[in-house]
């Protein structure tokens, strides 16, 4: 297919058109929170008015993961009076995630692998199957917390249907899949001119100039480096400040551990089973009856998180459990940084 561009001014009309078939989620400016002196003023929301969509966004607290993996999901419904008749609850509707940064695209691919491997989880996968992803390339790192280049997530090869590359007043549109082609039906695309092609090239060069490696080693060596650090005192030292508040897990785009709870309706005739985010940093996470807790020290929990991100998930799925988005560091009051931790253990070897 011939290269095409979309004028930024035509974005709204395209979103409007998408909205007829799909539910569209995109980054928007959050409602005014007056004492907000930080930069994280954007959030992923369902689009009500296309004019609200802000593709100039940088970071968000939660990523688009929440539309694929909501923090609370009912997975099972049953009756409490008479025959229980338990039924799976699998909810999904056609949705477009518009403006997904490369790190989040990569993170979604990790989730796909985690939920798709071995015993597939249709609750996640049905949503995933019904989801179209419109990527948005980054010309520069969002802030100093992110290290996506190191984690190999700046240039995802797949996992999106369309990739938008912003350049001046237009987006260079790369169509990756048939679904991507369908999405564009209502867009006022224009064939890319020679100038546009040059602009695309300029973007790549600009990007190359803006992103720098920050880890002293390649990701593929992380498992080994982590292994060697298992008994290091580093964990103890870092964990002294950890609150075990779970913020890091909650905001991470690749975290998917969960807890379940059965709920009884107020009229006592129905019940359901809800799963919700859990966090390996919370004290009761690995506790079993009798009070035995297999990771009762903060340091062992913190180590577990870092290992999961840098080693276990990588070994299980072939994809790193961390995409370098920097969310965990940004969310942590104690200032615990996964990037710094990796740097520290790589250096201390």
């Amino acid at each position, binding site marked *: 297919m011939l290269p095409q561009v979309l004028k930024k001014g035509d974005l709204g009309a395209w979103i409007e058109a998408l909205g007829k078939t799909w539910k569209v989620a995109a980054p928007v400016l959050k409602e005014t929170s007056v004492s907000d002196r930080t930069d994280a003023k954007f959030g992923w929301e369902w689009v009500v008015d296309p004019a609200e969509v802000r593709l100039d966004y940088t970071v968000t607290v939660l990523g688009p993961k929440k539309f694929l993996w909501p923090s609370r999901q009912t997975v099972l419904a049953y009756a409490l009076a008479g025959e229980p008749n338990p039924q799976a609850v699998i909810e999904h509707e056609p949705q477009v995630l518009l403006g997904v940064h490369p790190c989040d695209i990569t993170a979604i691919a990790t989730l796909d692998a985690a939920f798709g491997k071995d015993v597939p989880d249709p609750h996640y996968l049905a949503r995933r199957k019904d989801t179209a992803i419109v990527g948005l390339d980054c010309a520069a790192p969002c802030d100093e917390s992110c290290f996506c280049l190191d984690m190999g997530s700046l240039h995802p090869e797949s996992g999106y249907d369309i990739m938008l590359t912003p350049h001046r007043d237009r987006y260079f549109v790369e169509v990756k899949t048939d679904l991507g082609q369908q999405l564009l039906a209502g867009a006022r695309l224009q064939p890319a001119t020679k100038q546009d092609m040059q602009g695309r090239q300029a973007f790549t060069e600009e990007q190359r100039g803006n992103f720098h490696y920050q880890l002293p080693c390649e990701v593929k060596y992380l498992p080994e480096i982590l292994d060697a650090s298992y008994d290091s005192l580093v964990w103890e030292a870092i964990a002294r400040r950890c609150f*075990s508040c779970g913020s890091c897990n909650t905001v991470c785009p690749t975290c998917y551990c969960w807890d379940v709870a059965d*709920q009884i309706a107020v009229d*006592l005739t129905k019940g359901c089973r809800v799963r919700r985010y859990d966090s390996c940093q919370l004290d009761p996470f690995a506790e079993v009856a009798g009070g035995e807790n297999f990771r009762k020290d903060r340091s062992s929990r913190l180590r577990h998180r870092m290992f999961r991100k840098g080693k276990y998930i990588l070994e299980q799925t072939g994809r790193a459990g961390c995409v370098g988005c920097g969310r965990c560091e940004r969310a942590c009051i104690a200032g615990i940084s996964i990037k710094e931790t990796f740097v520290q253990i790589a250096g201390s070897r």
Partner: protein
Amino acid sequence: MAKPVLMFDSLSCCEGCGLQVLNCETDLLPILEKADIGRFREASDGDVDHYNVAFVEGSIVTPHDIERIQEIRAKTDLLVALGACATHGGVNFLKNFQDPDDVAKYVYGDKRAWFPHVAARPLKAEVRVDAEIPGCPINPREFLEAATCLLTGKPFKLPNYPVCVPCKLADNVCLWHKGAACLGVVTRAGCDPYLCPSAGHKCIGCRGLVDKPNTQAAKDVMAEFGLTVDDILREFRLFQGIYKEVAQEA
């Protein structure tokens, strides 16, 4: 099967928790079908001799309160403490940090002898309490959950993680990054979806401490953010004066 008999009453408090029960609105109706209300003074006339579950809000601050909670305990199978006043002493606990005679003198002057009071305390300081719903005020959602649990004999469990979890799930930027010393890091969650940080204000700790809070880190981090011990205690004492960690310093 006879319907279980519920009872609602209050000791010293603002009765906001009872109001939160009414604020469950139509969700209360199915519960009212399954249970009888033996007493709900704020909303209804009448009383009975025995209750299956008594929900009591408010702290104990007078000798008379002690008698009343003992009477209630004697009449009920299960006693549920509703709200911060009943579970942790609530804001009433603040007076315990002042000289009791001075407190009475400031308010009653030379007539203070007419008005005996004891150190403020939660229900569990005087009687056995079977379940607690913390918060100032309680969360109607949690009340409904506790009520369905009690009606079905399922144990009611409080979340054992800090407010940061629901706060992050609400997509909030942490208030610490905006310069507010939010107590959510060490406070037990369960207030969602009405949590203070979502409304732009730091958590003031009304649900008490989570199990095993990292108080060492709290001190370090708060100090880094430029807070003095005095400031920190003032923050914590509004609702958490009952904890050793909070009460002792100073």
